[in-house]
Every structure is written in C-alpha cells, then in structure tokens.
C-alpha cells in the first residue's frame, strides 16, 4: 500500500489532464498523473491526439505540429514543474470518504496499488467506437484499423472503406486518399453530420465516393480483409463490396465506466459538471472530453484542464489542504 496522501491525483493524460498537471504542479500541489497504458485500440497516454498526424489548429504552432509531438511537449512541460507520472490505468475508485482513493496496477509487478489524495481531477477522455462485429475484431491489424495515420501507408493503391458521417470520418477519408486508389465513405443516413468545410473537401476529392443509407453487417475475409457485407437501411437490399481496408469513425464513448454510480453522468456516460469543472462530489473535478461531447478540441480540453486545476487549487485552499505559498522574499523585515 502507498501510505502517502497527495494533494491531487489526475486520472488521464490527454490535453486536459496534462494542462491540469502543468497548472497544479506550478501551484506546488505535486500532482500524480495516472496516465493510462499504451494502446492502439482504445484510450492511451497522451489521448486521442496520439493517433493523429498534423494538428493545424492548435494556436501557437504556425506550421502545425504532429499530434504525438504536441502531447510529448505537454508532458515534458508538466514534468519540468515536478508532476509525477504513473504509466498505469486506474481500475477502481472510492470517493465515498476523504482522502479519496484510486487503485491502479503497479507498472512492473502488476500488483494493485492504492493511491490517496485530497482532490481528484478526472480527465480520462473518450475513445473511438467500433462496429462491434466478431469479424472486425478477428481482422484487426489485417485490414481493419483503428488508426488511419498508423496504417494508411499499407493501403497504397488499394480500395478501402471508412464508416461514419462526422468530421473524424471525413478527415480520415481525406487523409487516406493520399495512399488509397479509392475511399468509399459508408454512412447510415443520407446526410452527413460533418462540418461544411470537411464536407466540401470530401465532395471535391475525386477519390472519395459515398454509400448512403448503408450499414456494415460483416467484414469478409479469412486471414485479411477482402470485402464488406453491407445493407441499405431504406431498401433492405444486401450486397458485398470488395475492399482491402476498413477504418471505423462512428463516434466516441467517454471513459467513465469506473465512475458509474459515483459521479453524475448523462445518458451517454459523459460526466456532468457545474460551476466550471465541479462534479457532484466536492473535491472531484472533471475536464476534457470526458465531460464534453460538443467541442472535443485539443484547445478546449486544455482550457478546461486549466479550469479544473484552478478549481482544485482553490478548493484545497478553502479546505486548508493546499501548501502554504512559497515565500520568494525573505521573511524578516
């Protein structure tokens, strides 16, 4: 067991969590960031930006920056001010009494460890949804991909499919035309959810075609993807299309399973916050995509991470838990 009671524990390490880490570290709160575990298929340290390439809209980077590089910089900045990192994933929490407690496996031994703190900042983010087909799981890495930026390269000269109708789907489709001969966007409705600018870009791209009112019912292939079984939801007509790669971008789900029944959330599992970053529990704050299904940008996540850090600091101060201000001038007058 870990006896030390910390000022603040930050769960999750995307733009929100790392910004909260920078601010709380600078406020001398010595945050422990439980950053998550490497993964290509769900949530991971650094968050969703770890699966992207160029980030063109993060202010300050005139020529854009690679997602993983940007997150590397966030992390280094937090480390510089003394944030401590644990590469593990929180498996359960107990917020029923103070200090709050969370449990996570030790990165080396795998043994579950307890960590306690006066305040908790939840920034566990959201992860991409998959179709949930057995064939999709079986062919993961053999034509089914969760990371267009990682795997687009392997589909040079091939025909591939992207499922979804939002910004992420069109962004992936556009990106994948750098490699693929053709990209078919399969969407269950007749109209896209994506922003106007993304739609315009996609409609103008000669390599992108659309399959409207259509859902994927199966992925075809024994050892690698060879096609998709699809069904038109209006006519109920079924058909098979030949493709070599499948990329799914049908939306996100918040990583809130461990907080179910503890923190208030909406019907989709997004945490509810009020007065800034406060949750229903005093001393527990939430920031980033885990509480935002509307904006979902690196900059809004970072901004809300800053809010959570300030809210946590003020709350700790009010509780008498925050460390005294460091005197920068001699105390004898």
């Amino acid at each position, binding site marked *: 067991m870990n006896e030390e009671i910390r000022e603040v524990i930050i769960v999750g390490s995307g733009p929100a969590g790392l910004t909260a880490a920078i601010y709380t570290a600078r406020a001398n709160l010595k945050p422990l960031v439980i950053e998550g*575990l490497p993964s290509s298929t769900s949530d991971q340290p650094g968050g969703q930006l770890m699966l992207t390439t160029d980030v063109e809209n993060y202010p300050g980077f005139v020529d854009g920056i690679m997602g993983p590089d940007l997150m590397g910089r966030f992390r280094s900045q937090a480390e510089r001010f003394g944030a401590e990192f644990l*590469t593990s994933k929180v498996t359960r929490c107990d917020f029923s009494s103070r200090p709050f407690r969370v449990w996570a496996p030790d990165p080396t031994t795998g043994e579950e460890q307890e960590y306690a703190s006066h305040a908790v900042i939840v920034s566990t983010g959201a992860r991409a949804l998959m179709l949930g087909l057995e064939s999709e799981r079986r062919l993961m*890495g*053999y034509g089914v991909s969760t990371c267009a930026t990682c795997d687009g390269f392997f589909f040079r000269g091939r025909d591939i499919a992207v499922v979804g109708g939002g910004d992420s789907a069109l962004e992936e489709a556009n990106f994948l035309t750098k490699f693929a001969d053709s990209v078919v966007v399969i969407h269950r409705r007749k109209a896209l959810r994506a922003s106007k600018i993304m739609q315009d870009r996609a409609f103008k791209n000669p390599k992108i075609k659309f399959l409207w009112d259509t859902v994927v019912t199966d992925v075809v292939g024994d050892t*690698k993807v060879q096609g998709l079984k699809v069904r038109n939801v209006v006519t109920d007509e079924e058909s098979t299309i030949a493709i070599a790669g499948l990329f799914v971008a049908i939306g996100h789900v918040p990583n809130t399973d461990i907080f179910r029944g503890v923190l208030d959330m909406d019907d989709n599992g997004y945490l509810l916050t009020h007065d800034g970053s406060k949750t229903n529990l005093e001393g527990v704050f939430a920031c980033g995509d885990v509480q935002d299904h509307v904006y979902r940008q690196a900059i809004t996540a970072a901004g809300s991470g800053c809010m959570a850090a300030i809210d946590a600091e003020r709350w700790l101060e009010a509780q008498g838990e925050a460390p005294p201000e460091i005197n920068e001038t001699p105390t004898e007058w």
Partner: protein
Amino acid sequence: MGQHMLALTEQTFDEEIKGSESPVLVDFWAEWCGPCKMIAPVLDQIAADHPEKIKIAKINIDDNLELARRFEVMSIPTLILFKDGEPQLRIIGAKGKGQLLEELQAFL
C-alpha cells in the same frame, strides 16, 4: 533507441534473425506512428531487463517496405517474435508493459 536495440534492414535481416541463438522480437515501426512511439520506451525496458533471454530489433517500415510486405504487416506497431529464424508470435498494436510481458512469457 536503447543500447540493447538492433536496427534491421533488408540487407541484414536474414543473417541477424537466422543467426541468432536467442529469440528476436522485431518491432515494425515508423516515425509518424504515435502508438509506435508509445511502446518504444517499454521495449527498451524489456530489452534491458532480459538481455540474455531475448533480443529486440527494429524495422523502420519507411526504409524497409519489402520486409513489411514479406511478413504481411498491415498495421503498426506490429511485433513479431522469431525463434530459430521462424516467426512464432505476433502482437499487433501498442500495449502496456504488463500485457507485453504476459504475451512474451513463454520466451522469457
């Protein structure tokens, strides 16, 4: 890249893999792949922890596309464990240290 890492190319691959007495875990990666960067330090640690048991080698697929094709790599990171020159185990996608050690247990 840690000191226990070996960078393989199309020219050196067969010799290194076939000539190795210990199993070689080959990491197919690329500079532009975020998850590949996530697992690089984990692989460094595993290599440092088990220097006698296992060798870890890297293949940059940008420079060695033929090797990626030969082993039908369609997603990175992909880790393939070679023993006596033959592929024995394939791990696709980034994973944490604990999970990787579990999958590699039989070879460590």
